[in-house]
């Protein structure tokens, strides 16, 4: 008797939640509102959002702070979608169809449980902003075409598990913002110097000793630029310059002295410093724990 009552309560709760979500979707359909907000609604699955895929004309879908575990391939049917925000969910897998969305410009998959990306993920035709902050990604989790998203102007990879960044990163010719904060990066490729439009580079909280001198060719110290590089085991000359400011670091790595130091450092094969932070408590790992 008691357990039955318990069950009916939870069922009522669930239907009340779904009714709320349904009302939002119905409203959007009735008012032709192209922007749909379903933030923090306790949604665990797309099945809890009946009628969502009938809203063929929506341009923005915000599903942040839910408990969604997977994205159905049918998401690609929302072909007018330009902004898809799935920040802070429980997503582990992405459908391949996601990359074919013809109008998707901004994709936020931050704070999920992604350990890999599907094959062909880099096929987005017009993607401009890709946020993969706070997942479980590393260089081995990236598909071969990841850096072929030529339209990309901002790539957020902070709070992941990268040790290296593939040299193909240099193919992102339109990239203006690259965030690699709080990974385990040991070495940056010199191809970062090819990103001539880069004006924001976040590499703080990694295991970097040196910077490729090619970074000196970028405009990262102007009034419209950002360079964050604290919390790295920098070689002493860089650490000393950093004390005075990032502009001094850039000036220093442009010098012949530094180019010599860098070539010697590369040749010496200095073993990488050990990881500095314990990431086991990240919520993106919760399932493993």
């Amino acid at each position, binding site marked *: 008797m008691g357990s039955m009552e318990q069950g009916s309560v939870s069922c009522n709760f669930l239907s009340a939640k779904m009714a709320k979500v349904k009302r939002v979707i119905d409203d959007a359909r009735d008012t032709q509102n192209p922007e749909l907000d379903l933030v*923090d609604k306790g949604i665990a699955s797309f099945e809890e959002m009946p009628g969502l895929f009938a809203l063929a004309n929506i341009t923005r879908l915000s599903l942040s702070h839910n408990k969604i575990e997977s994205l159905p391939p049918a998401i690609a049917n929302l072909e007018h979608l330009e902004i898809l925000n799935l920040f802070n969910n429980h997503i582990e897998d992405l459908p391949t169809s996601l990359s074919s969305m013809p109008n998707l410009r901004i994709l936020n998959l931050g704070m999920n449980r992604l350990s890999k990306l599907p094959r062909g993920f880099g096929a987005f035709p017009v993607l401009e902003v890709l946020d993969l902050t706070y997942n479980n990604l590393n260089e081995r989790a990236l598909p071969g075409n990841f850096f072929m998203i030529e339209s990309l*102007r901002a790539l957020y990879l*902070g709070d992941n598990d990268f040790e290296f960044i593939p040299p193909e990163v240099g193919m992102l010719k339109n990239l203006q913002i690259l965030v690699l904060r709080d990974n385990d990066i040991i070495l940056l490729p010199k191809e970062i110097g090819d990103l001539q439009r880069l004006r924001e580079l976040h590499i703080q909280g990694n295991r970097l000793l040196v910077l490729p001198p090619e970074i000196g060719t970028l405009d990262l110290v102007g009034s419209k630029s950002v360079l964050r590089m*604290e919390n790295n085991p920098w070689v002493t000359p860089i650490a000393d310059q950093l004390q005075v400011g990032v502009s001094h670091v850039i000036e220093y790595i442009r010098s012949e002295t530094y180019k010599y130091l860098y070539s010697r450092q590369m040749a010496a094969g200095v073993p990488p410093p050990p990881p500095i932070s314990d990431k086991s408590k990240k*919520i993106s790992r919760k399932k493993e724990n």
Partner: protein
Amino acid sequence: MSSSREVRSPPAPKMKGLEQSFLYQRRQMAHAQARELAASNARTPLHEKDFQAEFDKIQEIMNEVGGVTPLPKTPRSFAPNLAPPWQIRSPQAERMRELSMNLGASECSRCHEGFEPNEKVLNSNGELWHPQCFVCVQCFRPFPEGVFYEFEGRKYCEHDFQVLFAPCCGKCGEFIIGRVIKALNANWHPLCFRCNMCDKELADLGFIKNAGRALCHECNAHVKAAAIGKHICYKCKQVIEEGLLRFRGEVYHPYHFNCASCSVELNSDAREVTTSRPGYSANQVNELYCLRCHDKMGIPICGACRRPIEERVVTALGKQWHVEHFVCAKCEKPFLGHRHYERKGLAYCETHYHQLFGNLCFVCNQVISGDVFTCLNKAWCADHFACALCDTKLNQKSKFFEFDQKPACKKCYEKLPIELRRRLKRMHEEQAKKGSV
């Protein structure tokens, strides 16, 4: 081409002076005070009391020259050889006449009868008349106001004279007294015969028949030049056969000008040099130089094509440019006077400047036209400034946190895992410390 032929009408040697014609006087008055001649003729018709003074003068002249027909002094400058009409009816004048003339030997010029001793006698140009005999030969009525016109020895009143002898003006249709312009198979008042295009009086200038119209020489030249596709010099109004010179928006024969520098007479190679002076339009201060002086003057050289700039000069980026060579460094389209943006020695159009150097909205990646939110090294359209984590709209009053240089609303920030918030907090503190150092 034909030329005007002037005749005097009527051809009789003796004719009433024009000043006696009321019609003419009315027209003269109507035709403008501007003409001094007309003004002087526009005096009111002579009245009897004025005659006395005139008569005295006539007597004086008669006494001096004897038998010669006296000419009254009139201010008229034309038709001077016409004998002026004269008649006296004032009793006072008649009395004087009686005293000075031998009446016994006199007879009336019309009926050839003598005069009774107490009879009134009229004298006109030395001829004597009975008052009843001094009438219009056509209507046999006295002359209104004493004015008559004489033709072949006969005297007519104004009305009958005009009806019988005066030509009609081809323009105004009124009788013409005095000077008649015969042209284009019609008669005209001198004031009525004007250029069909510019309305200039043609009586003394001559005219040219053009397609049935009378034109002045200048207008005819214009019409002719337009027909053969040539220009008319703005100064001498003649056709420019070859080698014209444009100056301050008009077209001239080059030889009307001299070089502003060496004073040589110009040819069509001369150059108009644009100068600018505050408060003047370029056309008002342009100068002409011969080609030699022009080339020596340090003509601006285009920063793009390295060739001299002879027309409009654009000055920008410390250089001078042909209008069509001053272009966006990105798309290479000329600005053509539109706004440009300079950066690092290069000029850009609005779109490409923003695309390359900011003020593109972080969300829509379009140039921001309205209000702008600028922070975190980025810019947003007012409508697109929102929390990066949940897309909730933010405004000036919203509190937000920085997360990888993106705005995060308070609600979202508080949902971040504690260990991340701790790291972010530590990072911010370090930055703040550094900033204060």
